[in-house]
């Protein structure tokens, strides 16, 4: 069965934090140096009373309006987040109520970071293919800016907040794309290199802040992700030249430039679009995808690869064909 994409959108917080703002708070930092190292000039940051569920709600409402789907036709809602409102209930339950979805709609959260959106495409496609659901609302969002340690020069410049949403369906009418297979992968030996220990059951009173071993994460990304993308292209029985666009999780400018160079891809085929958002974790792919669609950088007929990768370590590489109108 073919599974269709009907729309993708996102919502970012209003609050903008520039590199100059960071320097005002941390006088030993340098704004140009932050940009040189990360490719980021500003990021959108949640206010104290805003959560990933709030951004997911806004993205979902926009998507429902744009795709004109009736909320009672949505029979599954999947919410990927690492920053839920509460330990329980699941944020997807809260979102279900706010969106006024049917009582027959199944919902659940799953906890993955930068691979989460493409993992969600994998799950959504499987639900539709199996006949378990007809229309799936996938949302992915985080507020990692709230999890950065005070004055942490590694994480604060990188992370922004936001949420994305996509609608997948068994129906072809008004679809914008076909969702193909997803190659998923995990290397749990790398879990310690990107983590928040505090707040969970093992360290309930520990510091709730991101600990990131940048060099290890970088090394993992360089070795595992280009290989995984190559494997997925082989699985699809395509060649690298037959992929029009490679949409990669927007981790940071330096990692993306290095990956792009390693895969011998032009800026046009592998866009970097992080300078005014920062790394928005699981939201970064829907943000990138929608912005590319709006600019015409991704167009009908394009064969795309979407690659999510990060914490876990975890990765998911999805093929997507945009339909000709």
């Amino acid at each position, binding site marked *: 069965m073919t599974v269709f994409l009907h729309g993708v959108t996102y919502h970012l917080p209003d609050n903008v934090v520039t590199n100059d703002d960071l320097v005002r708070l941390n006088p030993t930092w340098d704004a140009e140096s932050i940009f040189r190292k990360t490719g980021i000039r500003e990021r959108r940051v949640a206010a104290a009373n805003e959560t990933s569920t709030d951004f997911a709600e806004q993205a979902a409402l926009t998507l429902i309006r744009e795709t004109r789907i009736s909320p009672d036709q949505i029979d599954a809602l999947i919410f990927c987040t690492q920053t839920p409102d509460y330990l329980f209930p699941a944020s997807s339950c809260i979102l279900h109520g706010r969106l006024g979805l049917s009582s027959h709609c199944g919902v659940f959260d799953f906890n993955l970071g930068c691979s989460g959106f493409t993992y969600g495409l994998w799950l959504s496609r499987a639900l539709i293919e199996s006949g378990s659901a007809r229309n799936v609302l996938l949302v992915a969002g985080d507020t990692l800016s709230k999890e950065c340690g005070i004055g942490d020069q590694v994480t604060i410049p990188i992370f922004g907040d936001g949420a994305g949403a996509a609608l997948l369906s068994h129906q072809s009418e008004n679809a914008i794309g076909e969702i193909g297979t997803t190659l998923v992968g995990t290397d749990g030996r790398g879990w310690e290199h990107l983590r928040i220990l505090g707040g969970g059951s093992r360290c309930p009173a520990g510091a709730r802040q991101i600990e990131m071993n940048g060099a*290890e994460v970088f090394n993992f990304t360089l070795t595992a992700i280009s290989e995984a993308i190559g494997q997925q292209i082989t699985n699809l029985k395509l060649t690298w030249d037959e992929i029009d666009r490679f949409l990669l999780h927007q981790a940071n400018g330096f990692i993306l430039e290095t990956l792009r160079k390693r895969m011998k891809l032009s800026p046009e085929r592998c866009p970097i679009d992080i300078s005014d958002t920062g790394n928005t974790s699981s939201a970064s792919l829907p943000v990138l995808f929608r912005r590319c669609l709006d600019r015409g950088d991704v167009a009908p007929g394009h064969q795309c690869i979407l690659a999510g990768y990060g914490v876990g370590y975890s990765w998911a590489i999805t093929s997507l064909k945009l339909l000709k109108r």
Partner: protein
Amino acid sequence: MSVVSPRVLNTISEALQVSPAELTAESGSNDIENWDSMGTMNILLSLESEFGLRLAPGQTSQLQSVQGIVELLKKAGKLE
């Protein structure tokens, strides 16, 4: 003081954008301002392009000192 191959010192100094004269066998990330997270990633890339060195998971901690890098290169058979 042990002697480090000029090729190794040049590779590290270029990655960190510092003069080779600033580096000794005893240098490490605590001594050189540019030897931060970004500098370490640049060293990783430079070692790969200059020596063909690819690191296994968990090995990047050795990129924090000249001595650690020399040991990595020797262990990988990239340096005598």
